[in-house]
């Protein structure tokens, strides 16, 4: 009987300590995202963003504002550029990429190449 009583006491103490330690750790780990928050803020102001969770800004270009004849086309292009930049950097959804300018360049590829490429892309979709 004494043995059983002792065994239950140790069990109770042991389980309590294990749970208390790990609950305390759980609470502390829940606060860890605050580290990122402060870091994000400071990196915005200090560095202008050079890491995963910072903004990537492309310098503003006058052409962006001047070349605004087709707004819907520009919006699609900006979305495409943002997606491409994000995918290229292998980043996740918490990365902020802001396209602030782009410049259209003259069409140099032969028209048959362009058609062939678009067909190839269509087949892959």
């Amino acid at each position, binding site marked *: 009987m004494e043995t059983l009583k002792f065994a239950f006491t140790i*069990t109770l103490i*042991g*389980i309590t300590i294990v749970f208390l330690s790990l*609950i*305390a750790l759980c609470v502390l*780990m829940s606060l860890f995202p605050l580290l990122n928050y402060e*870091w994000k803020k400071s990196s915005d102001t200090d560095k202008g963003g050079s890491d995963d969770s910072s903004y990537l800004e492309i310098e503003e270009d006058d052409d962006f504002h001047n070349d605004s004849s087709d707004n819907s086309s520009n919006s699609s292009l900006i979305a495409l550029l943002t997606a491409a930049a994000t995918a290229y950097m292998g980043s996740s959804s918490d990365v902020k990429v802001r396209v602030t300018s782009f410049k259209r360049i003259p069409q140099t590829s032969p028209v048959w190449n362009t058609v062939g490429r678009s067909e190839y892309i269509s087949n892959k979709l």
Partner: protein
Amino acid sequence: MLNDFINIIGDIISKSGFVIGEYRHFIMIFISCVLFYLAIAKEYEPLLLLPIAFGMLLTNLPGANLYHPELFITESGKVDIIEIFNNGGLLDFLYLGVKFGVYPPLIFLGIGAMTDFGPLLSNPKSILLGAASQIGIFITFICALLLGFSQEVAAAIAIIGGADGPTAIYVTSQLAPKMLGPIAIAAYSYMALVPMIQPPIMKLFTTKKERETVMGQLRKVSKREKIAFPIVVTILICLFLPDAAPLVGMLMLGNLFRESGVVERISKTAENELINIITIFLGLSVGATATAENFLNRQTLFILFLGLAAFSLSTATGVLFGKIMYYATGGKVNPLIGSAGVSAVPMSARVSQKVASEANPGNFILMHAMGPNIAGVIGSAVAAGVLLAVFR
């Protein structure tokens, strides 16, 4: 001349292991061969089982006298280092690392350097599953006491439920060094048998609907969080439970090497060369303690049985706590990740994934299961600290 020749030959034969060996030695040699088979042909935890089996073979070769247990178990209870230096053999020297509790923390250093705590950090609540899985340790402790084992031996047997080899060896070397062989072999054997032991228990305590639960995407953990984690854990756990400091401290040091990114050479050494060397020393010296006198008795059978019970109970309590989390979160947690709360990294997390994908082939809970799996390493180290604090 002929007489001399016959006398010398007779002398050599009389000293050979075939003559001076007892039947128990040959049984132990047979058992070590079975372990060779399991390690090599079946690949059951070969990294440790192979050196353990060879250590067992060496120590049971009659007449070889590679290991002298009497040098370590003295009347005063203290190790006589001078005596070991004067009369000890190779395995005696290697065993000093186990006796003084050096090897298991160094193994933890390597494990820390190999472990990514990201899945745990992205879902902190999963650490509770690692705590729940330690309940099996304490239930087994009660059973072992009721079966007549001393408190120290009962504690050492119970820690098998933590499914963490180095932790089991560390606790046993401190509390019940005579039992080191059977306990270490039981611990590693059951760890290797995770894919066979756990699934029936997991299915017994969960419904198909629960097993099909799909869990959401884990958030990305920043480098800053990963660096802060080992420092915070070390401060918190070691202040709270100093007896857990050797294991937790080394585990977290290894992880800090990895995550800091500034000591790549040290990190690679810890996770490769160092852990490999220590694994050889640890395996050989632990195997050497499995002498015929220590191993071939009724207690070993009880240890094997209780070890299995500890492991099964830890799995069951983890799954049951997973069920509680399933209902508490409105069905967002798959209870199968609870079984990964026993350490056995990453095998038990893989088993969780396998059972989940049997229920729902499109379900991927591996990374979710890695959280409790890693938490189990910390949890078993804390449980070991509790037992050492009480019984050492």
